[in-house]
């Protein structure tokens, strides 16, 4: 079995009640497939937090520190970060 690491920042860690987890992947699995698994696992609140209607402030998903589109095929050991976009501190 191979895995990717998913890290949850900000409200995502609140909703999932975890800051990171290992998710098993199968060959050819895409980022979209992974997101579909997470949407089911964590429910409506999790999906809503992505804020698709928030335009530039919608959630950001990076893989190994780079923004990837959903057709991206996952590789074992990939680190996926799910975060909002912030700047004010």
């Amino acid at each position, binding site marked *: 079995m191979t895995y990717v690491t998913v890290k949850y920042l900000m409200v995502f860690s609140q909703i999932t009640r975890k800051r990171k987890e290992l998710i098993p992947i199968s060959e050819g699995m895409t980022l979209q497939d992974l997101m579909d698994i997470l949407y089911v696992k964590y429910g409506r609140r999790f999906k809503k937090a992505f804020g698709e209607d928030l*335009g530039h402030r919608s959630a950001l998903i990076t893989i190994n*520190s780079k923004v990837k589109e959903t057709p991206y095929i996952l590789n074992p050991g990939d680190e996926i970060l799910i975060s909002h976009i912030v700047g004010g501190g």
Partner: protein
Amino acid sequence: MTFDYGGYAGKTLRIDLTKGKIIKETQSKPKLEKYLGGRGVDAKILFDELKPNINPLHSDNVLCISTGPITGLLGPTTGRINVATKSPLTDIYGNSNAGSDWGPELKYAGYDNIIIKGRAPKPVYLCIDDEHVELKDAAHLWGEGVFETTLTLQEEQRGYDTKVAAIGPAAENGVLFCSIIFNLWDAAGRTGTGTVMASKNLKAITVSGSGELRVADPERYLEIVRDGWLGVLNDPGFLMGEHQALGTPICVNWGNAQGWLPTRNFRESTFEGADSISGEEFRDKYSTRSSPIPGGRACMSCPNRCKRFGRIESGKYAGTRGSIEFEGIAAFGSKCGVSDLEAVFHAYTLSNDYGMDCVSCGNAIATFMELVEEGVLEDIDKLGLRFGNADAMVEMVHRIANKQDKLGALGALGAYKAALKIGKNAVDYTTSVKGIDTIACDPRVAKGFGFTYAISSRGSDHLRTHVVFEMIRMPPEIGKELFGSEGACDLMSYDGKVRMVLWHENLAAITDSIGSCRFMHASYYAQYPVPELLGKLRNKKEVNSIKYHDWISAATGMKIDYKKLLEIGNRIVNIERALNTRFGMRRKDDRLPKKFSKPIPKGPGKGQRFPKKQLEKMLDEYYTSREWDLKTGLIKKSELIKLDMKDVLDDLDKKKLVR
């Protein structure tokens, strides 16, 4: 008698501590029309009343504390207070700003601002209880921490209804970067305003107010404020809960992911221990039901609730309780290479109780750690001062506050003055601009932030502009429309950044002068015209926004449109420039530390730097837009005439300080 303009309380309190005299003056209408209040009025008072060459700790230094016309009114964030003086840390214009509800209370007591001069013969505190204002003995408070001082004074007066601004023992000891802390938790942290207050033997200012404020056009005012509230509540950043989630510590993991989290005194910009000192970690471990304010706290009339509180229940630092901010976490955490959040939280709380600026304190320690590692400074007090040593970091906080032993006394000077004293090439390891050290964002990655550090009137600092615009993936069309380049929306691009900085700088001057919060115009971008531009892009029919010009107009009765608003912002930037010109600041001082011309070694910012040549190019564009002399950085006569600043022009002209 009510003051002609709405919004204002209408009176200034003038305190001469040497003579023990208290005078109540009516506000100057022309000054308010030109500078509004807060930061703008404070800078003008300093220009008019401060002898430029005095030692900042001399009794003749002037300490100004001011609210603005919307402070204490209904509206999205109306709780800010401004403090200004000649800084003992930088020897130029010193200024800081805090939240809380102290400012509103001052206005309810009937005063817009306080001007403090002289030195009391013995420790006193200023007690303001509506019309009754007096200086009281503070012998029993001298030497006490900020928390004890605040709670004692509240107990002696009207309990929580009395709001307290206090300094701590570090200020009394002459540490150069001390804060004034408002009502326990909110610091006017930077540039050493608390040190100046201590030099005047003034331990605290208590305020209890029961009066009311009026606005010029109540009906219009409610419409404008409603529009502003909806502007904030519908802002995409607010909707996704930027600050409500974790407070400002939300930036730790995010800054690390973006590659701008200062690490080991800016050697790097990503920290392997970021998650251990993150806002998420603080929430999960310390922001418990037993923390002082478990749900977090907002300042006066703020929907944002960005203050986070916690408590350490067990272990070495058990009993530590208080608030925490991103800047403090970075200062004692990643900058010092410390990944122990309990040590960081403890150091931060200590720093607040001693009354020190956490940024300057943490930066001094981080600089010393690097100097010791590089062999430039000897660990003379045998503390094991190395990056990552949490015990040494905490011990240094105590030592600096008490100026204990050699390193403590050195640290009390702040990183830059300490480096000058150390000699050799120690200054090359500091991150200071105009004598103050850099906040928690690596300017080699965030170019707009970097340019801001170079030109900021109080030295290396982001809050003169707060150009978060470049960090939040704004649609490029907005960058093009507002600042002439899509690059303005790209963190690591230089394109459009000068215009972006200029706009933010003018607007930030307004925010600080009216008594509102930076997060409303930069973070959430609820300020006109950004929501309108975003709405247009998304074909939205109804758009709400904060319109400072309408807000100030409805509150005061002045007639201010958007163009005039930016002109006032520009005037405030120029009065600060004029003040700094008299303190000897020129183009050569608008610079970035040598450290930032070296490339970042790893992480998302790998290879990024801020070359001197690039900075000079940007300065040319900036000075040209500001109508400042390209060679010297002095303001041009034509600009001062255009901004109706003839009195300032006449003064500078006499001293040959204009072009």
